[in-house]
């Protein structure tokens, strides 16, 4: 029962955040203007810039930012108890993530739809934008490597998910062929596709696939990682209509179904079957080796509370499709709320879904042990109790959902990192073609994953670094929003308070992690140490540049009201309205 109360409190906080706080931000601070000519209209080219219905755009934004991270982060962080995770997810979503995502969208909107990287160059200076490139490159590398390991663990822990997870690929290919080659009606194809996906889940549940050990001379774990990288490499090179597009689409549809099932399951299980928490509100007896809650909680739950990746998506693609500036509130702020909902679901599943206290303590016997497998187990129990689906089947649904999310993020990540490498190569002065570029990406990522041994633990140990890097990116975005608000002499505190907290947490965590990676002896983890030092240097860099830029902004005369209407390239004021 108490889990239902917590769920309702959480939903109420999100609702209040959207209805009250985002309204304040939109009206008083950012002054969203329905008459402002958005880049989607100004540069409407039918390709990049297209005015899009706000509900559709919300769907895109939400599914682009929701990978496996809002599940993995909270599922690890509940080791400190459900209360700290719950507070950080709800307060973080309302005051940090909502502000950050909406602010990034608005900042890009007022700058001709430019991305955060380009805004960093404009507001912080050219050196600031170099930091952005380093951070985004590192972030992609970490996402690809970590997700490969997360999926491998899931496929081994939930053998029932193997058939639906790989079966989703032919389903996606068939959807692509049906829509583009046979010209079938999309609604009908969607229904058939979803039915096929769930049929695969039923089949997978009946036929679990456990790989023999060894397989092709590798352990099952190594084999899955190699198979995933081969898949990601091929998927990122295939024409998008054939695999990536239908796969992302069917995933998005499945996310909405899965989230609904999880919340309805929690509600019914709590109300009618008295399901309640097995985990403590605050865990005072954390296992040995668990890092201190401050600052690690704040970097462990990145997506679901605040995540710099959202700013990259909001300013990269979403801002170019915004129909009216006032839609930014729904798309940006409510997009963060959607992510918060997913994180809340993960917290409930991992703390109220596990069957007994003893089992919970067994699952959370060490830091980083619970994770996504705990989500699958706990969520499966809740859905079984609430909706009557057999536990193994519900667990398969959730495991498939988690695998599909991590896998789509991974193959998109390979494609994006290839672009980063190709751009870097161009700067140095040679051209990388697609195949060589993809190979370079795969070699770097595989080397990273296997750097700690053939079990692929190199990919998982960099997960804590993902949090710090991601929060550093969030700080960069918040610095830009703060500078813009200072220049306009508006209430910049709404951005600066989250900025200071996130920045300190990220910096502190990075410092703490140096001690974890370096112990003077043979156990020193050189790879992570070097990456961590890069992050610390980048953080200091961002801090100094950010403070200098904010001081400049405060000393300059206030920006004129129509400053945003000036074309920053030509300096002319274009015809508006």
């Amino acid at each position: 029962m108490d889990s239902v109360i917590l769920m309702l409190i959480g939903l109420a906080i999100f609702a209040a955040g959207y209805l009250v706080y985002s309204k304040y931000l939109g009206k008083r601070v950012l002054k969203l203007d329905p008459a402002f000519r958005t880049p989607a209209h100004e540069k409407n080219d039918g390709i990049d810039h297209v005015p899009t219905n706000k509900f559709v755009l919300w769907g895109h934004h939400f599914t682009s930012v929701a990978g496996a991270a809002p599940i993995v982060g909270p599922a690890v962080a509940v080791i400190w108890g459900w209360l700290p995770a719950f507070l950080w997810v709800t307060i973080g979503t309302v005051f940090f993530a909502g502000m950050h995502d909406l602010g990034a969208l608005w900042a890009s909107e007022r700058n001709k739809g430019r991305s955060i990287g380009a805004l960093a160059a404009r507001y912080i200076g050219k050196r600031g934008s170099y930091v952005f490139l380093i951070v985004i490159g590192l972030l992609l590398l970490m996402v690809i490597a970590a997700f490969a390991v997360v999926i491998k663990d899931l496929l081994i822990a939930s053998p029932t998910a193997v058939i639906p997870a790989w079966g989703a690929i032919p389903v996606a290919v068939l959807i692509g062929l049906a829509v583009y080659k046979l010209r079938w009606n999309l609604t009908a194809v969607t229904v058939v596709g979803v039915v096929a996906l769930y049929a695969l889940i039923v089949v997978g549940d009946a036929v679990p696939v456990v790989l023999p050990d060894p397989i092709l001379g590798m352990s099952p774990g190594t084999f899955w990682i190699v198979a995933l990288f081969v898949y990601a490499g091929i998927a990122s090179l295939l024409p998008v209509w054939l695999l990536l597009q239908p796969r992302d689409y069917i995933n998005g549809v499945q996310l909405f179904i899965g989230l609904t099932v999880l919340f309805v399951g929690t509600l019914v299980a709590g109300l009618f079957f008295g399901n309640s928490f097995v985990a403590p509100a605050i865990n005072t007896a954390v296992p040995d080796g668990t890092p201190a809650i401050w600052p690690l909680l704040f970097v462990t739950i990145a997506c679901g509370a605040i995540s710099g990746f959202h700013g990259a998506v909001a300013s990269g693609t979403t801002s170019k499709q915004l129909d009216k500036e006032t839609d930014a509130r729904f798309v940006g702020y409510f997009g963060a709320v959607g992510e918060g909902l997913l994180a809340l679901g993960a917290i409930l599943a991992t703390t109220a879904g596990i069957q007994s206290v003893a089992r919970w303590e067994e699952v959370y016997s060490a830091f980083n042990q619970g994770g996504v497998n705990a989500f699958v187990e706990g969520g499966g129990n809740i859905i079984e109790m609430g909706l009557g689906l057999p536990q193994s089947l519900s667990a398969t649904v959730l495991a498939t959902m988690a695998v599909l999310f991590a896998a789509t993020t991974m193959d998109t990540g390979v494609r994006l990192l290839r672009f980063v490498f190709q751009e870097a190569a161009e700067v140095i002065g040679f051209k990388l073609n697609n195949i060589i570029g993809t190979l370079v990406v795969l070699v770097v990522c595989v080397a990273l994953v296997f750097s700690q041994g053939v079990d692929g633990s190199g990919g998982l140990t960099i997960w804590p670094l993902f949090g710090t890097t991601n929060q550093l990116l969030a700080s960069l975005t918040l610095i830009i929003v703060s500078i813009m608000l200072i220049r306009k002499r508006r209430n910049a505190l709404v951005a600066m308070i989250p900025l200071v907290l996130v920045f300190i947490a990220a910096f502190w965590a990075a410092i703490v992690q140096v001690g974890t990676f370096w112990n003077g002896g043979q156990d020193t983890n050189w790879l992570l140490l070097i990456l961590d030092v890069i992050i610390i240097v980048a953080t200091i860099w961002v801090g100094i540049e950010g403070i200098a830029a904010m001081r400049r902004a405060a000393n300059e005369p206030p920006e004129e009201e129509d400053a945003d209407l000036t074309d920053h390239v030509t300096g002319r004021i274009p015809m508006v309205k």
Partner: protein
Amino acid sequence: MSFSSRWAAFSKGLNDFYAGPYRKTFGVARRDEDDHFMLVVLAESLGVPDPAAYYTAELLPAVYEDFHDWHQRSGIPRSPLDHISCC
């Protein structure tokens, strides 16, 4: 709002949701294809012998509208053809 118009709106939304994330990729591919087509149609005018010129000449009026964007995209700042003075 009647049921059928609601359904049509839903269907349209679903289509947008399907195509939206990849609109750019498809748009770029289509533009590249159109650019090649333009090159074929204008080949003869640009001095490239084209055995199919007799047929492609008929298409000239259809491509005039996009000509300006095309030559600018191709890195030619001013119209390369005397008989089309678009800029």
